[in-house]
């Protein structure tokens, strides 16, 4: 991993000069700002039981399904399309270092963008003069969920980018995989037909991977190590498949 810092700083820099990053950042911050404004309107209209922070993270999946593909679609697909992966892998770097650096840079940007939205709450508490709006429990829990789940989501984006030379195709694959993981799990959890005896093991697996359930736990301040393990093992698996995908495509290039 000697070259990882060099590759990571290079990849981060490349993301910062890419127009797709700014498109993703603008869309994301604009959308989250809109959500936040709506929450404020609701709270201004009538008193609510839940804190604004816990409501804020409920729609996390929508910007995630758009932003992660935009941040990761280029990383490996573009290297393969241009052929620069060949020059890169004929220097003393390994495929693992390359994939991890690309993942690291995209994850860094993902967490930075989410982190920037913490400013919304700070602005609210500052101008309302009410410290309750800066409800640290759900806020920290929510951001911790974003940080932990982001590992897996970004890894899925990197994996999608390793499958094709075409950035758009990579973005679509990534969006679909994320949609299936986040929304598919949620849809299946509520399915009655999965309650049948023979399907109980499948139901248990789907419940284990129920992202919305994880989010609710984190926001309530419950950090379950099983949830953390789910995201960490998913991340490792997705990155492993990304490395294998790059290597297999090299063998057939």
């Amino acid at each position, binding site marked *: 991993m000697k*070259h990882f810092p*060099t*590759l990571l700083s*290079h990849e981060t820099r*490349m993301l910062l*000069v*890419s127009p797709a990053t700014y498109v993703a950042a603008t869309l994301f911050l604009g959308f989250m700002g809109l959500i936040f404004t709506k929450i404020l309107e609701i709270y201004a209209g009538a008193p609510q039981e839940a804190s604004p922070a816990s409501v804020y993270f409920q729609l996390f999946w929508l910007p995630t399904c758009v932003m992660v593909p935009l941040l990761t679609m280029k990383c490996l697909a573009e290297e393969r399309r*241009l*052929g*620069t992966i*060949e*020059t*890169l*892998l*004929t*220097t*003393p*770097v390994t495929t693992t270092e390359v994939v991890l650096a690309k993942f690291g840079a995209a994850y860094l940007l993902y967490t930075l963008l989410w982190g920037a939205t913490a400013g919304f709450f700070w602005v609210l508490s500052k101008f309302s003069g009410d410290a309750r709006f800066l409800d640290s429990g759900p806020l920290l829990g929510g951001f911790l969920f974003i940080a932990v789940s982001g590992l897996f989501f970004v890894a899925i984006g990197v994996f999608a980018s390793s499958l094709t030379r075409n950035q758009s195709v990579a973005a679509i694959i990534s969006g679909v995989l994320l949609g299936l993981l986040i929304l598919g799990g949620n849809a299946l959890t509520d399915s009655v037909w999965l309650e049948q005896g023979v399907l109980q093991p499948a139901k248990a697996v789907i419940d284990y991977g129920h992202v919305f359930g994880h989010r609710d736990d984190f926001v309530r301040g419950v950090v379950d190590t099983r949830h953390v393990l789910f995201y960490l093992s998913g991340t490792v698996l997705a990155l492993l498949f990304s490395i294998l995908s790059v290597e297999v495509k*090299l*063998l*057939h*290039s």
Partner: protein
Amino acid sequence: MPEAPPAIEVAHLVKTYGGVTAVSDISFTVAQGEIVGFLGPNGAGKSTTMRILTGYLPATAGSVSICGASVATEPDLIKRRIGYMPENNPLPEDMRVSEYLYFRGRLKEVARRKLGPRIDEVLEICDLKRVRHKIIGQLSKGYRQRVGIAEAILAEPPVIIMDEPTIGLDPHQILIVRDLIASLRGRMAVIISSHILPEIEMTCDRVLIINQGRVVAQGTPAALRKEIFGETTYLLDVNGEPAALPAALAEIDATLAVAEEAAPDAAGFRRVTVKTRREDDLGEAILRTLLAKNLRVRALRRREHTLEDVFLAATRRSWDAVAAPAPTKTP
């Protein structure tokens, strides 16, 4: 003192893709500091061989060593010993030239304090100083090729592998690249593939011709001419008694004979092609003898076979060998 191993040593290299043999039992060596031209028609297996040399692709069979280290068992070591410029010279579009070289230098483990002066040096060598702050995507083809070459020589590796470094360049740029490659002679072993054969002939110490995944000829251009053609050809414009010419030629040398004779032109001169196994120049002797025999000579020229002739003959010979019917077994 033990003798230094060759820069590149390839033995019985085979590469197959899904049942198709791209490289079939290739063996060759490149000495340290030697410049070798790698020639072959499209699809001959040049790029595949080069990719195997860099460790980018694994070989199906055979062995490849770079400066004594096996590519298969010590890939990390050999990656530190090569500078590689792939076919079509892929470069990142959105980096500046100096940034790109700095990044590549760090990956190639050039010490940070040495990297700045070394980048200045390669920019100077490759005449890139004017464009060092430009975005690579905005550079012309010639500059892009030179950025690829600068990157390949940046870490001063003992072996440089370049796949068609002069493709798409104008004659001025070809000249610059040729001089650049020639300047590496003695310091780095260079293996270059190209379709521009005069460039190869002028730049390379030795030539390796491959076709259909096999080495069909290798040696210096002069040795290849001798091996492939084995004869020296003279072209004569001669006027006089046709029957007198063979006898006159035989007087000069027993192997000197008419190979081809064209019809006489309006002035009565015939274009005659004469061949001999003698390598020394017989021009003056031919001229004197023919004049003594009352044969008038308007023109006499010794024909030099170009590398292109050698290439065409060698590849044709290999195709003929493949196309020839297999000997039938007699019971």
